[in-house]
């Protein structure tokens, strides 16, 4: 289902359909997070990605009025798609080879997160909280400043230039 949504993102010609396929993929990834005991990240994934970011995408699509189906048949650059496909298959082959050959070391490395997790369902959240606000508290602060800068920058970017007459009056 995750892959179906991902393929939908790149194959649907209508941007709105692509955004909805993206929602499918993001929810699928959230389910996979839950399956691996990353409950907090699954919640954040649903709220931030499937909620905020996709809504933002749809909002911009509607705002710009580009929700018409794109002409996906014509190929502006010759041989771009075959080349992209070949490159994609090649990269996947490299990645898959790396993953499969390194499987042994990955599996043998550790015995999983602390087994208290089974007894205590909140252990994941507690561990993440200790990590974020303990070891990485400086990065946390920097990230909050980054968000602030992004908001201010976007407001500046998209603000319409005020007319001079209005200002002088």
């Amino acid at each position, binding site marked *: 289902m995750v892959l179906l949504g991902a393929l939908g993102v*790149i194959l649907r010609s209508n941007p709105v359909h692509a955004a909805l396929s993206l929602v499918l993929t993001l929810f699928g990834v959230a389910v996979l997070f839950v399956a*691996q005991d990353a409950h907090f990240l699954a919640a954040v994934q649903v709220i931030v*990605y499937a909620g905020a970011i996709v809504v933002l995408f749809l909002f911009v699509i509607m705002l710009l009025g580009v929700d018409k189906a794109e002409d996906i048949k014509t190929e502006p650059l010759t041989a771009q798609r075959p080349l992209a496909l070949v490159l994609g298959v090649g990269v996947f082959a490299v990645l898959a080879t790396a993953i499969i050959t390194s499987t042994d070391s990955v599996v043998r490395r550790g015995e999983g*997160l602390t087994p208290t997790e089974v007894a205590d369902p909140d252990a994941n959240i507690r561990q993440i909280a200790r990590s974020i606000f303990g070891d990485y508290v400086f990065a946390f602060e920097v990230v909050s400043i980054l968000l602030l800068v992004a*908001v201010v920058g*976007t407001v500046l970017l998209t603000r319409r230039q005020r007319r001079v007459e209005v200002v002088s009056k």
Partner: protein
Amino acid sequence: MIAAAEPTTTWYLLLSALLFVIGMVGVMIRRNPLVMFMCIELMLNAVNLSFVSLAPRVANIDGQTAVFFVMVVAAAEVVVGLGIIVSIMRGRTHATVDDVAELKG
């Protein structure tokens, strides 16, 4: 049956590699900047998935913390990117990345 088998870390990593490649091909073949942005989100999600599947293997929560920061930075990046797209595409009827070529000077 694949669905009945217990998914291992290798399967998660292969799935995330496949997601990443799909996003990469999408960036290369699509011409709508919004859809290209969605493909970038796909690639970020693929990497997040691989982080989360590897975190329990090394008995360390740092992978999940990294995913948290990646999500925050991705949100900021989407906000700025969409702002740029809006300011470029305002007043244009259709949007493809090729139109932006006239920016060079």
